[in-house]
């Protein structure tokens, strides 16, 4: 994408100041609005005046009811949609398009159906610039890491949902992006697989310590995974509240832990009103 739409109304003094003060901010979203213009039908204001900062190696959850624009915000950060109103900066530079510093994982896996598991992961490695042998080794390492050894030559149509998502995650991790954007990645999985995947993601993150922005509508998932939770309002979305979510998560039965339960309740109260609003709007 060219610079045509990346540069907008310049930097506001506020954000520059806050960035200078908070030197560890990796992603700065400043007063972003987004209008969605479908080719047929009327325009929709998806996001309104969204501001958020994400620090390096943080795990941030974007939590909100369906249709609140959280995925749209994710796509804007990823550079898949042009930022026209407001600014988004990653490492100080405005987002000008998709890039290998921001990897994305989708809800419906987005695997190349005509490629095997191995080829899918190798695709992510193509642009990294390694030698053939090195690429194969790395791909195999990631296949093993996500627990898909033995399925390297299977096609996605032969895999279960959980395995497909693991392939997608491996593919995104393979080219080592600094930032991981995840759009309700476990939404298409059954409940058991989902909780297993949540555990695995947490352990992968703790090992690799990337910045993760995780979109979800599931409060428990957000509380389980994230350092900070940004609660979004119903459409047009803006950040309703940002809560710190760091507490001791070492309890193996975390879901029964009182701190956990209280956190979930607290946040659910915030989300509930928005969810009701969203329900009222939908047909």
């Amino acid at each position: 994408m060219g610079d045509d739409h990346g540069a907008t109304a310049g930097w506001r003094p506020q954000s520059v100041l806050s960035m200078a003060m908070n030197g560890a901010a990796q992603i700065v979203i400043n007063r972003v609005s987004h209008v969605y213009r479908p080719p047929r039908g009327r325009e929709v204001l998806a996001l309104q005046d969204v501001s958020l900062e994400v620090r390096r190696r943080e795990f941030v959850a974007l939590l909100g009811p369906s249709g609140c624009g959280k995925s749209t915000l994710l796509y804007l950060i990823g550079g898949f949609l042009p930022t026209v109103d407001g600014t988004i900066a990653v490492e100080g530079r405005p987002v000008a398009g998709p890039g290998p510093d921001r990897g994305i994982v989708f809800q419906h896996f987005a695997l190349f159906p005509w490629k095997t598991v191995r080829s899918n992961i190798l695709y992510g490695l193509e642009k990294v610039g390694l030698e053939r042998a090195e690429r194969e080794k790395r791909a195999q390492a990631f296949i093993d890491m996500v627990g898909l050894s033995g399925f390297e030559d299977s096609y996605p149509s032969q895999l279960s949902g959980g395995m497909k998502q693991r392939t997608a995650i491996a593919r995104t991790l393979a080219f080592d992006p600094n930032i991981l954007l995840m759009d309700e990645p476990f939404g298409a999985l059954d409940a058991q697989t989902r909780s297993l995947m949540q555990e695995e993601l947490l352990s992968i993150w703790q090992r690799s310590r990337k910045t993760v922005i995780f979109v979800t509508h599931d409060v428990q998932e957000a509380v389980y995974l994230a350092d900070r939770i940004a609660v979004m309002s119903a459409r047009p979305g803006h950040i309703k509240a940002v809560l710190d979510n760091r507490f001791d998560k070492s309890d193996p039965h975390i879901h029964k832990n009182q701190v956990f339960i209280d956190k979930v309740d607290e946040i659910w109260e915030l989300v509930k009103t928005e969810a009701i609003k969203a329900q009222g709007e939908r047909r």
Partner: protein
Amino acid sequence: MARVDLARAAEDPADTIARLMAPPARWRDRLGWGALRWVSVVALIAAWELFARSGAVTPFVLPALSDVLLRIWSDAVFGDLWLNTAVTLYRALTGFLIATVAGIALGMAIHRVAAIRCRASVRSANTSICMAL
């Protein structure tokens, strides 16, 4: 606030791709693309007319579009355009109708037979029987 669209419509892939190529400048661009459709039609018509009249080819090879249209009109008014059109349409539509009815009936019959013959897959049974006929 204007009433918002309720369905979270996924963006058409072609439009996404197009947007990645050249971000639209809103309504002006859309008007532009619409006009382009007419440009090609008009250009084609003009090209035909000009090329035919240029003398590069004889009227036998490519008569001018205006002459062709004139001839259509004169055939319609003075000639037997209507008669020939009617005959052709009759043959085409009758054949089509028979084929449609027979085809639907045949397809349903094959499906029932193949459903009973649970061995072969329905599609391969279809193909072989259809090919045989």
